């Protein structure tokens, strides 16, 4: 019953997801552990950059993703897509900031970002699967009970 565009999009996102999951597993990609390391031992990160920038770039995650995304942005611009930034609304940003602080706390407690937990579940880690069960139940819970409240606080 799905429209043709939806089928294509589902297949494409699945293919991209396999590539992302494979590379993430091989290189142990996590978006929270670098932040943890940076906050725990800032001087160590500084000396690592000073000793060998190349090695630091190989180990880190954020620079790679940001550079790749920027390249994609430039390509899309060259292809002629209109990529204007949306206007920020104060209520939304404040609510999002509170969510971000809580998300950082919870993810640091769990020891990984959602991407980390997904490829960990693919490895067969039971604890990661239990995290995923809570994750998907949380989505349904949010849309059943919390969506209206959040929308009221931050229109």
């Amino acid at each position, binding site marked *: 019953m799905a429209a043709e565009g939806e089928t294509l999009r589902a297949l494409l996102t699945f293919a991209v997801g396999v590539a992302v999951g494979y590379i993430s597993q091989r290189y142990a990609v996590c978006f929270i552990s670098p932040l943890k390391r940076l*906050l725990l031992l800032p001087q160590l990160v500084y000396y690592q950059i000073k000793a060998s920038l190349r090695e630091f770039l190989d180990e880190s995650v954020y620079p790679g993703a940001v550079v790749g995304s920027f390249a994609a942005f430039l390509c899309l611009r060259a292809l002629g897509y209109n990529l204007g930034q949306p206007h920020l609304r104060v209520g939304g940003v404040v609510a999002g900031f509170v969510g971000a602080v809580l998300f950082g706390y919870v993810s640091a407690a769990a020891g990984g970002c959602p991407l980390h937990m997904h490829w960990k579940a693919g490895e067969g880690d039971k604890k990661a699967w239990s995290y995923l069960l809570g994750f998907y139940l949380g989505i349904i819970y949010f849309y059943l009970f919390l969506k209206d409240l959040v929308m009221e606080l931050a229109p």
Partner: protein
Amino acid sequence: MRKFLVKALVLGFLPSLTFHALLEAAAIFPQAYGLCVICHARDLVNYLVDSLTQARFFTYGPHLSVLGIILGGYLGARRGGRTSPLQGRTLDFFLLGFLASVTALVMGMCTARIALLIGWGSLEAVIYLLGVLLGVLLWLRREKR
């Protein structure tokens, strides 16, 4: 340098470009929507809920990238072995997953999309990254005690 380039290609370049250029959907979707675990999980779950019930949850369509990431992790583990297992109680992980998805939905993105959005020059993502840093700092403070 090879690892850096592979990460840039797979984590940043490929998702953004395929999602926004090949699908000709740059106008419909929000910024840098190519790789965002919580958004795509939300889309998939809400699509299923909408199909099965009359709930009319918000969705952008069936995005299967979360299933792809799980399959990719399996293939990678078959090829090159597992990484170190997680430490902690199973029930704690269930609760943490629940809280993580709720807070990420309040934020509207997960950390993967924050990285992509910073590449696109978004101020919002920088603010949220500072928020995540603050949250990690609070947890480390509590853990040290």
